[in-house]
């Protein structure tokens, strides 16, 4: 490989979500963990799985399947958490991303990456940086910054403020209405 080729090649970590093969720039990835104990943070959108203890640091974990609108899967021996380092609103953050399995580290020349197709994929293409090929398999290259972008966070905020969907229903279902909070002090 000549120098120009090296300069134009990026390394990617590939992993699977369901049947799809995904790739993320290796420079953003700190490490890959076995499925850790995850402590759920209540009353948050379900794709925010909770937090885990990474060498005495509290690191949030997100479920990429839910994030990309794929159906959720059973946990297997291969399930793992990819620790990603990125910047969010100017702040350096570390986030764990749940993946079904991690495959390999791959060199991909830039000219072999194509822009993502507008349609035909069964998932939200906003997070994609492009498409690559490995043998005869397609590779969906993720833009990790976008995956964890502030626009997405705003979504989280909205969801948190107007809890809708299964979460709030579950909560409401449990509380036989009217009885739950009766007798709470009037003035707080």
């Amino acid at each position, binding site marked *: 490989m000549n120098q120009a080729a090296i300069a134009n090649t990026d390394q990617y970590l590939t992993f699977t979500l369901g049947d799809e093969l995904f790739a993320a720039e290796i420079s953003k990835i700190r490490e890959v963990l076995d499925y850790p104990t995850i402590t759920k943070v209540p*009353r948050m959108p379900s794709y925010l799985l909770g937090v885990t203890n990474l060498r*005495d640091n509290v690191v949030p974990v997100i479920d990429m399947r839910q994030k990309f609108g794929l159906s959720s899967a059973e946990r297997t021996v291969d399930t793992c958490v990819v620790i990603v380092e990125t910047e969010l609103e100017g702040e350096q953050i570390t986030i764990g991303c749940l993946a079904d399995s991690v495959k390999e580290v791959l060199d991909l020349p830039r000219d072999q990456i194509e822009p993502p197709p507008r349609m035909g994929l069964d998932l939200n293409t906003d997070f994609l940086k492009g498409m690559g090929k490995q043998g005869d398999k397609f590779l969906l290259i993720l833009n990790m910054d976008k995956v964890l972008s502030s626009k997405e966070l705003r979504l989280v905020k909205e969801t948190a403020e107007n809890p809708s969907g299964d979460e709030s229903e579950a909560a409401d279902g449990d509380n036989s209405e009217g009885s739950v909070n009766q*007798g709470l002090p009037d003035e707080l």
Partner: protein
Amino acid sequence: MSREEKFRDAFREEAIELLVQLEEVVLSLEHEPKSQELIHRLFRIMHTIKGSGSMFGFSEIADFTHHLENALDLVRLGKHSITPEFINLLLCSRDLMQEMLDTNSQSLETSEQADRILTTLKGWQGQRLPEKVPASGSQTKSEPSDQVAYRLRIKLGPNVMAGGLDPLCLLQELHSMGECAISAQTDLVPPLSEIDPELCYFYWDAAINTTASLEDLRGIFLFVEDESRISITRLEHDPPEDALNHKKLGEILVERGDISEEQVRNVLARQKRVGELMVEAGFISQDKVDSALVEQKIVGDLRNSSLQSNTIRVSTEKLDRLMNLVGEMVITQAQLNQVSNQCQIQDIASPVENMERLTNELRDCTLNIRMLPVEVTFNKFRRLVRDLTASLGKNADLVTQGGETELDKTVIERIHDPLIHLIRNSIDHGIETPEERRKAGKPEKGTIRLTAGQSGGEVIISIEDDGAGLNRNEIRAKGIEQNLINESDTLSDAQIYNLIFKPGFSTVSTVTDVSGRGVGMDIVKREITRLRGSVSLESKRNQGTRISIHLPLTLAIIEGLLTVTETNHYVIPLTFIQECIELTSRDISRTHGRHVIQLRGETIPYIRLREFFALGHGQQKYDVEYVVIAVVEGKRLGLVVDHIIGDHQAVIKSLGKMYEHTEGISGATILGDGTIALILDVRQLMECARREEAEMFIRV
């Protein structure tokens, strides 16, 4: 960062502190205009700014300060008393200097402002001078009969050059004050092999004929005074023709303290009489100098050791790092305790126990380092109140209390802006104009009381004014207008008052530059909530308003009660906990499934974390559960958990940006076995539960 930049930064830091002091002094001076001590302090501060400013290339500031000093000199000499205009001028100047420091370069704007202030100053001086000067007659510099001779020995501390000071500057300044002869003394310079090039080994003897006063001469050395030894003596003014009265060299040396009279006598016994008076010194032989030096050195050492400062400056980053390390140590300690308990080995138990005690002490010490008295912040508000009341045509005093109360440095820094907002509001909306106050039968001068105090694990800062109080009806009307409440709602006073914390709420129809834009209060509330604190408000019509801010003592480590619900651990801050009681299924059936318990005749509502957080399937799992009774500002709420484990030192870890909008959770902590426990935000839980209850009523 280059060496020079480092010095400049150091100067800037120092100067900012000095400007804060300056402001304080000026404001005190306003109340006691006669105080000589304050004027002297003012001088000292200005001189330090001027001196170090010119040294580090902040010539603009140095020049400006120089002119200010001149003006101030008139006051010091009693040629003019301190007027409100003069105080204003000083304060403006202070602000300008701050600006100069911030911009760091000669911007047009600041130099224009400087010109303006200086012109005012000059006008002021010019106005006073002509009528005063003839009376005292000592201002004209060319008057030779006013000249006085001084003798100086300038012995700078060996480290002055390390501080960036060029001794030459001092000497030049001295030189510019009059006819002057300076000679350098080299006898302290060690052999070449022992020389540390960064130390100052020289000292200087000088004789000067000047119109300047002793004070002025001292002034030159004002900011090296602490580490240096400067002796200035006034020489008797001998008419030159009276040659017979000239002093002997020996006498001069004795006077200067170089040698004792006895030594002189000894010397004189061995030697011929010393020659005629010489103005320049340095004419005695080496061994005599040496003996005198030994004596001086001993005295000097004594002096230096007593002057050793007992504070040091440490960067906040270093402190933060220390805090993090201690935090991790506390966590590891918890792990160690757990292991030791499991092993049941006597030999290990005792050192682990000792270790735990040390860790706790270390933690307390480290937390303590970060604590600062809130006074720092309080003092800045005196100026704010003064300026604001003046610009609004009101009259109010700021009274502070409990300034010695300590708070974490970060909290103090972040509480500053919210407090500004609150004080502004008090002045703008609270305190009435003097006429209104007179009509209401109150003293014309309003009072704003800023108090701080500690209560349990919290610090309470309150801002109280004796103004008009909140107008319930007006707020209600505005609330309806802005769709925050409904016409038909019956609300308590507290609920209505709380409307002012809503974003965009403002009752003032005209927006002033002080307040009225309706952005203040919600920002205040948000910032304080972010510090894990809370705001509450009391108000009485025509009697005033009091806003209390409750803040946690520290942001880093809290004492909490560790509880378990389902498989999750929750830490409830101990500050809020009143007691824990059992909750049996019998208790539940007795209240017909309502979420209340009877405790010593009182009915207390509770929420079940299992349901509230949608844990497990929301089903009760155990026959006996536990209720932790929490108290927030007098209101009680029970939190139902499965088990209570016990006391826990929680090192607070933030959940990060992704979890910024959690409800009822303020952070996380790591337990001994590595699992994460969430820290409950009791206050938020209470609000949250209440809000949901209200929503439910609407739906029904």
